């Protein structure tokens, strides 16, 4: 099984991943192979089975809707590749 090149390019676009043409060719084979391999799950009868969404059944805890942290722009921006004042800087989005 191989994935069509346009499918690889479409999901790469969805994932915001730039791929070289050589990578697309390799991924057609590799992703196709993995998808063919996981097809074996088709043999499992899952009728009346509830999906398991977490490793341990637990009710999510609630907490007060209060501010516990913040007001430290310097620390938050400390790893920013580019900043302008107290903001992250990106290329112009709106002309």
């Amino acid at each position: 099984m191989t994935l069509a090149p346009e499918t690889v390019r479409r999901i790469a676009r969805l994932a915001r991943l730039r791929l070289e043409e050589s990578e697309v060719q390799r991924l057609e084979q590799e992703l196709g192979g993995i998808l063919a391999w996981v097809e074996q799950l088709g043999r499992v009868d899952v009728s009346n089975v509830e999906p398991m969404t977490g490793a341990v059944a637990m009710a999510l805890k609630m907490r007060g809707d209060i501010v516990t942290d913040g007001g430290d722009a310097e620390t938050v921006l400390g790893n920013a590749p580019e900043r302008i004042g107290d903001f992250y800087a990106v290329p112009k989005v709106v002309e």
Partner: protein
Amino acid sequence: MTLTDLGIAAARHGLGRREFSARELALAHIAAIEALNPRLNAFITVTAEQALAAADEADEALARGEGGPLAGIPLAIKDIFCTRGVRTTAGSRILGPFVPPYESAVTANLLRDGAIFLGKTNLDEFAMGSSTTSSAYGSTENPWKRRQNPEARLVPGGSSGGSAAAVAARLALGATGTDTGGSIRQPASFCGITGIKPTYGRCSRWGVVAFASSLDHPGPFGRGVEDCALLLRSMAGHDPRDSTSVDRPVPDYAAACRRSLKGLRIGVPREYRVPGMAAGIEEMWRAGESWLREAGAEITEVSLPHTEFGLPTYYIIAPAEASSNLARYDGVRFGLRRDGEDLIDLYERTRGEGFGAEVKRRILMGTYVLSHGYYDAYYLKAQKVRALIFQDFANAFAGVDALLAPTAPSAAFAEGEKTEDPVMMYLNDVFTVPADLAGVPAMSVPAGLDADGLPLGLQVIGPPFGEEVVFTVAAALERAAGFTSLPAIRAGSPAP
């Protein structure tokens, strides 16, 4: 005995009696890292100066008769735990420039108890791998060598291969790891040391670079079962910042290591006897059964009928969660940035250059199974099979206290031996993935050597929050196995 050969319990004893100082202990390990890390590449970052400063503080605390339960114990930290002021890469180019302004919950707990951090250890990029060969910072070498072919460069397993190699080669007394599909237990087996993945929720994930959030389990490595018990007791505990962290008391795991096996029922899962298992593993498994029987346990065969579906289930759920978690690497807020013609182009170039081949493969796989029209067929289906795998374990634990199985289907392999086909590499995790999917605790203990002289591990799997019974059984295996073999490359030995 040299300081780098001590176990954690013995080191605590020696430090407490002032037979040696925390500074001397740290210096011995820093010297070992300087001598061997250029070859092994177990550490990405070495924090020698910080370790010595922390050791001096530990010495002052110990002199006052104070100091926490790990005061002065030098550890290695997998480079996926955020450490305040120390670069944290997750083995990826995209996090190359990242210096966290905060400390992960697990490492903060270790620091609270007095531990000393020697540095950050190598791993497969974003913990996605079983060989520590996909790191952007080079591969890690397993300190063990084949008898017949000592030139072959073996992998330490993965993804926590740097931590496992560091502990095996005596560059650290213990280490942290994370286990999403086997990333603590499989490298422990490959490197002849012990490692435990506790129950999901036992250790906080806060400050651990996320791979697959419903599967990521932090846990410790040590050169003995009790060392892991001492480390886990410090690492575990409730943390309100991780909503899946469990609020229940942390038991004295070291005490559990000394309990008797009398009356315990141990299950041997028949589906773990798979074709293609390497020579020596079946024999070691049988030996493990008789050791436990001689120690007073009752052995019975059990069935985990959905075992064969663990891997394909994992390779849908883990990439799906990864594709979502890794969406945060956008080149804007932290990490690598590659400029583009517009914002979308900036994202795509940053991610295209920042991620390696295996990470891209999993992001795309995850994006595909979550995309419109495929979600029910792949992702929802996998979540349902996961429920059946969990139910298998629940059914088994209704009749037995713990399970005994091999950790991995082979001993350490050489670099390049299994890399041509991604599915071949994924099969390494066949015995470890089910416990991650079910969230149950599991530990690997070195139990013997294969014909090549390489270590093999046995795995003890317990019910949810059954860490104590896991430690009891693992300690009995350790006593019976009497595993004293040493890796060829280790501190204090001449280079082979």
